[in-house]
Every structure is written in structure tokens, then in C-alpha cells.
């Protein structure tokens, strides 16, 4: 399997290099990516993604507040659906912002502009996790959790405490990991990297003619591409060279690109993603939209893989934990809760070609039903079911359960 994949990669890269060689002979200009994500116009940076940095910071505060059992539903709802000037966050600059996390949840052009029904259902799902955390889990903060009973479980060795609902699910984890799909992945892959947004209105003509957005140093097309970039690297320490600290800069997509990069089966993926972003942005400057779209396809494929690999990884970790002779339920359910969110996020993945995810919303719902469908959810799920879900996910991608699971 490994060898077959490798051969495939070698063949593809061979073909790619041969392809680029032959295009050398044509008169088309080659697009060169700069060493870092630095693009300028008139000696001024033309890169801007402040809105993404803001939403990542808001999401961090929301996720953290979900573990504060003195919080109320009204407080959490207001943080999620922030309005400009409301005193929702610890960070005053977030309060002043007109951005909100909820408004961009399941809100991409490609997936949801003509699917308000699903968009509303998904937003409702996030709302319901908040409500249930406050109504069902907060009041049971000191109750020992058991099958059918919400409460707290402590990890082995006097480890971390995990607060779960009656089905063993940590709602804060469900919320955080599902947001990686519904906000970061959906916005980047299905909104900003899509041609509906990149080429909207007169974006192509303006980019061709160097017409910048009013009062800005960038063309609208450049800016849209940067906004996709911002959902991965908006909290990076060095936003022009983010792989130096990949995985350490947020609790969302950046973090898990870092985790997948750390698995030797997938090492190199962080560079592939970053290189595609750089080359795609350079292609916009060079007005080479074919090259731009080829890079978007690479990014869609790789980010989708990150989501799927982490889904399988956590399901496998949970399975291993449940199979231990002395079961550490806190640790097992923590893994499964993270896995739950990554499985939920699969519906926001995007195949490199066509306007479709690797797993449809219906397929994802089917997997969630298998995972949580027993009367008592995680307390009832079997290792065999976790294996079967893992295999279903891996079969849609080019990796194996064994590669992702360790």
C-alpha cells in the first residue's frame, strides 16, 4: 500500500516536472513562488487577513468559556454571535470588532449559498451544544459520570478531568473540533478558494489590470486568497513563514496540521500546503489563474486529509483505550469526543475536483449515528464499530487506518 502510494506520488511528480519542463519551451511565463508569504505593491504589503485572526481569537475564547461552569447560555450565545461593541470577550479588541464566529459557521459560498436549510441546521447544532453544556453538564460538574449520567471523569494517574454529557460526549470538544470543519475549513476551501468568490463580479478584470480595492493595497482577488490563508495561519507567530511554529499557534486548523505533520507517515504535508498557498498567491499576481486553481486543488486535498486523518486517529485512540484491560474512560471518551468533532467536520471537506466533500452530510450523519447511536452513546460503542467507522473514512482517502492511527 505504502509503495503503491509512493509510486503514484513519484509518477505524478515526475509527470509534473516533465510537464513544467515542456511548458518552459512554450512562451508562457513560469510562476515562481517567493520563499515566504510576502507580497507587496508599491513597497507596501498587499497581504491582509485581520478578520480571520480575529475570528480564531474569538473561537479560542468561546472554547475556553465552554469549560467555565459559572458561565450562562446567554453569555456563551453572545460570544458565539458577537455584535460590534458588545462586551463579550476578555480581549477588548475583539469586543470592538464587527466580526462574529456564528455568522461564518457553515456559510461558504460553494456549499451553503443555495442550501440555507443545512446551514441553519448546522448553526442550530452548535447552539444546541452550548445549551446542553449549560443545562446538562454544568449542573453535574461534580457528579461522577456513568452510563446515562452526565458528570465528570478523571483520567488515569490523577490526570485531567473531563466533563461529559449523559452519552459520554464532551460537548466543548464536539464544539471546538466541529468548528474546525464548519468555520476554518468551510470558509477556506469552499468560500475563499472557490472561483465563485475569487472571480466574482469584476475581480478578474481588476486583477488583470492591477485595479486595487478601494483605498486598499490589494486587488480583491488577492485579498480573498489571503483570507483563506488566514484561517490556517492567522494566529501564527510569523505570519509570513508560519511553518516554523506550525501546530503551536491556535487550537484549530493550525494545530492539527502540526499534529499530522508530526506523524512520520504524513511528514511534509505542512510544507505542501504552505507552498501551494504561496504559489497560488504568486499566480494571482502573475495573472495565471490556471496555476492558481491547481494550487487551490492541492490545498483542498491536503486540508481534507488533515481532517480525515485526525478523525481516524482519535477513533483509533479511543478504540485502543476501550480495549485496555483497565479502561480509562475519561481518556477514551476524550479521544472519542475529539474524534466526534473531526467526523462532523468531514462534511466540510472538499475534493480537488468538483463541488463535493469527501463524505456527504448524509454519510457523516450515518457515521455519527453509529458512534453515538446506542442508548448511552460512547458507553455503548464497541471497538468493532470504531474500527468500521475508521475504515469507512480511510477508504474515501489515500491513507490507511494504520497510517492515521498511530
Amino acid at each position: 500500500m505504502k509503495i503503491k502510494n509512493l509510486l503514484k506520488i513519484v509518477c505524478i511528480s515526475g509527470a509534473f516536472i516533465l510537464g513544467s519542463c515542456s511548458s518552459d519551451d512554450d512562451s508562457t511565463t513560469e510562476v515562481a513562488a517567493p520563499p515566504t508569504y510576502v507580497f507587496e505593491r508599491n513597497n507596501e504589503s498587499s497581504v491582509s487577513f485581520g478578520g480571520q485572526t480575529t475570528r480564531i481569537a474569538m473561537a479560542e475564547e468561546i472554547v475556553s468559556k465552554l469549560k467555565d461552569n459559572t458561565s450562562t447560555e446567554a453569555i456563551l450565545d453572545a460570544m458565539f454571535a458577537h455584535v460590534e461593541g458588545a462586551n463579550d470577550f476578555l480581549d477588548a479588541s475583539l469586543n470592538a470588532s464587527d466580526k462574529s464566529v456564528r455568522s461564518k459557521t457553515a456559510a461558504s459560498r460553494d456549499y451553503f449559498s443555495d442550501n440555507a436549510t443545512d446551514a441553519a441546521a448546522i448553526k442550530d447544532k452548535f447552539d444546541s451544544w452550548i445549551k446542553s453544556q449549560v443545562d446538562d453538564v454544568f449542573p453535574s460538574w461534580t457528579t461522577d459520570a456513568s452510563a446515562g449520567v452526565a458528570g465528570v471523569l478523571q483520567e488515569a494517574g490523577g490526570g485531567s478531568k473531563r466533563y461529559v454529557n449523559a452519552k459520554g460526549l464532551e460537548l466543548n470538544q464536539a464544539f471546538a473540533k466541529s468548528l474546525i470543519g464548519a468555520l476554518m475549513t468551510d470558509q477556506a476551501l469552499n468560500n475563499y478558494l472557490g472561483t465563485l468568490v475569487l472571480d466574482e463580479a469584476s475581480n478578474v478584470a481588476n486583477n488583470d489590470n492591477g485595479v486595487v480595492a478601494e483605498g486598499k493595497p490589494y486587488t480583491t482577488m488577492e485579498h480573498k486568497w489571503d483570507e483563506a490563508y488566514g484561517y490556517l495561519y492567522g494566529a501564527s507567530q510569523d505570519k509570513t513563514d508560519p511553518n516554523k511554529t506550525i501546530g503551536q499557534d491556535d487550537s484549530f486548523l493550525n494545530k492539527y496540521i502540526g499534529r499530522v505533520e508530526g506523524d512520520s507517515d504524513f511528514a511534509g504535508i505542512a510544507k505542501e500546503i504552505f507552498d501551494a498557498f504561496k504559489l497560488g498567491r504568486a499566480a494571482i499576481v502573475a495573472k495565471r489563474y490556471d496555476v492558481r486553481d491547481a494550487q487551490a486543488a492541492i490545498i483542498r486535498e491536503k486540508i481534507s486529509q488533515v481532517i480525515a486523518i485526525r478523525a481516524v486517529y482519535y477513533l483509533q485512540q479511543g478504540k485502543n483505550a476501550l480495549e485496555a484491560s483497565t479502561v480509562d474512560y475519561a481518556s477514551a471518551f476524550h479521544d472519542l469526543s475529539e474524534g466526534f468533532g473531526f467526523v462532523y467536520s468531514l462534511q466540510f471537506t472538499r475534493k480537488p475536483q468538483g463541488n463535493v466533500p469527501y463524505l456527504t452530510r448524509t454519510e457523516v450523519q450515518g457515521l455519527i449515528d453509529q458512534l453515538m447511536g446506542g442508548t448511552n452513546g460512547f458507553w455503548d460503542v464497541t471497538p468493532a464499530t470504531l474500527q468500521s467507522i475508521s475504515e469507512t473514512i480511510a477508504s474515501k482517502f489515500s491513507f490507511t487506518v494504520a497510517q492515521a492511527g498511530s
Partner: protein
Amino acid sequence: MKKSLFLVLVALFFIAGCSSSDDSNDTGGITDNFDRKALLTNIADNIVIPSYESFSTDISALKTATSTFITTTDAANLVVLRNAWIKAYTSWQSVSMFEIGKAEELSLRNFMNVYPVTVAEIETNITSGTYDFTSVTKQDEQGFGALDYLLNGLSGTDTGIVEFYTTNANAAGYKKYLSDLVNRMSDLTDQVLNDWKGSYRGTFISNSGSSATSSLDKLTNDFIFHYEKHLRAAKIGIPAGVFSGSPLDTTVEAFYKGDISKALFDANLNTLQDFFNGKHFGSTTTGESLKTYLDFLNTIKNGEDLSTLINNQFNTARTKASSLDDNFSSQVRTNNSLMTQTYDELQKNVVFLKVDMLSAMSIRVDFVDADGD
């Protein structure tokens, strides 16, 4: 053209590399002629079983001293009980790394010696009188650490401690908890020792291959895991604030007793080095071991025998630790840099053991750092 030829060569190189690593993982075949069975026999008969027998004797003595204290509750019997606890706690250091077989199945180390314990939950248990010690979530409410609190932490004086078991409104609850703790530890110890003396010795020795689930691969991983997490990190690194940025003086082993944390550390360090050298329990005789295996493989690093480098590093760490206060809690408060220097010396052996030794023996690391979220 040259470019594509190069690519093909690179591709071939990769394929060759991949297939050979796949082979060694899948077949788990013997990679050298070293007599792993002789090594496993030495470990089982001369190290593990005698260590558990000695520990079991000390746990029995602890049980007796507990009964005596509960029957005749006074300061003199508290001192006797405390000394029995110290003896058993020290003895525990010679078995704690053997988290294999029944000990692994029971998760012995986490039920015997989690620290720091959570005092509020211990007190809640004593008040309610209902608790399930078999639950993983109760691991920080039992074991040697919970005894530390009950025998040393209830009051600043022995008279004050004894009052919890005599005049306290819930004296019966304190006595019951004390007794339940010791019985639980005794029961777990019996299960593990009996398994070794029953069928497990044979299972352990006959599983002498070199797959990831073979006895030597597993136990060598257990050894390194214990060295890294339970010696280097738990006893030194965490109190010294290596992972948190500032010292945490309440996280030392035997915090309430205070002045035995160094003795416990030393005992554990000696056990790990003795295990490496195949030294028989309670004797100076040595047998087949990780050291003799490395020497058999003639593993050299920087022109020196790797086994010598490892032993030298164990000795350097011990020498560095010898200047520490008997009480690590007071050490991190008064001069933490001596603790971090000890940590640094311990860390150097992680590289020798986990990278160089495992690579020489073709053993794969089977544990990863926790996710941390």
C-alpha cells in the same frame, strides 16, 4: 533528461528504503543471535520475582502495623506504622518499573503511587464512607500518596494526627479509610506476585522473539518509559518546574513526610541502573541484561562502548543528585537550579537509551507523548 533519470533513481531509493523497513516491522524476525531467552530468564528469576517477593513482605508488614495502629491507636504505633510505610514505599521503587503482565493489566503503578493526591476528594471519601478504589478516576485518592497524607499530613504533630483516629467525630471513618487503602495495596500486590510465580513466568520467558509484543521489546519500552516519565519527570522535572515554567513544591513524592523524597528517588535510580546491568536483587552478581546485549552487539558511540556511556551517565546523575536536600520540596524552594541540573543529567541518558540503545537492538518505541489537550 538527466533530471528524470535522477528522479527515477530517487524513486528506486525510496522504494528500497520503504520495503526494507516494512519487512522488519511485519515479520518481527530475530535480527541477531543474542540469547534473549537467557536474558528474560535472568530478569524473571533474579530480578523481578525476588523484588516482588521482598516488596510483598514489606506490604505484609505494613498491613500488620496498620492493624496494630487501628487496635491500639497511639503515637508510638503511629511511628511504627509510618516506618513500615517508608520501608514499603522504598521497596516499591524496586518493582514500579515492571508494568508488564498482571501489573500492566491492573494498571498497578497508577493505583499504587499517583502523586500529588487530591486531599479534598480523600476527605470526601472519608466523610461519605463510600468509594470505589477500582475506578480509574480514584487513582489520586489511594496508594502510597494517600497514606502519606493520612500518616503525615493530617496535622503538624503526631499527637494531632492520632486525634483524627481517636477523638475526631469521624475517627471510625479515618480508620476505615486507612485500612481499606492498605488492604487494596496488599490485594494488588498479591495478584501480581502470584501471577509471576504461577503461569506468567513461563509466558514471559517463552515470548522471546523480537516483535513489538515480545517480552524484551515491551519490557525495554517499559524501562525507558518509567525512566522518562516516572523518574526524570515525576520525581525531578515536575517539582523543578521544567514543564510548567516555575517550581511546584507540592508535587514531590511523599510531600507530607517531606524528608524522604530523595531516598525514594535514589532507590528508583538504583533499580533502573541495576536492571540495565542485570544485577540480581539483593546481590552484587550480574547476569544477562540490556548491558550484555549491547556489548554483544558491540555498540560503539563516539568511540566508546554505549553501555559504558549509559552507566557513566547513571553515575553522573547520581552524583549530581547527591547534593540535593533530603526534602525535594524544600530543595525547589531554596535552590531549584540543583534540581534542574539533576534533571539535565537524567535527560542525557534518555538519548542514549531511547535513541542509541533501541536502535542498536532494533526495538521500536511503543509510547508517544500524550496529546496534551
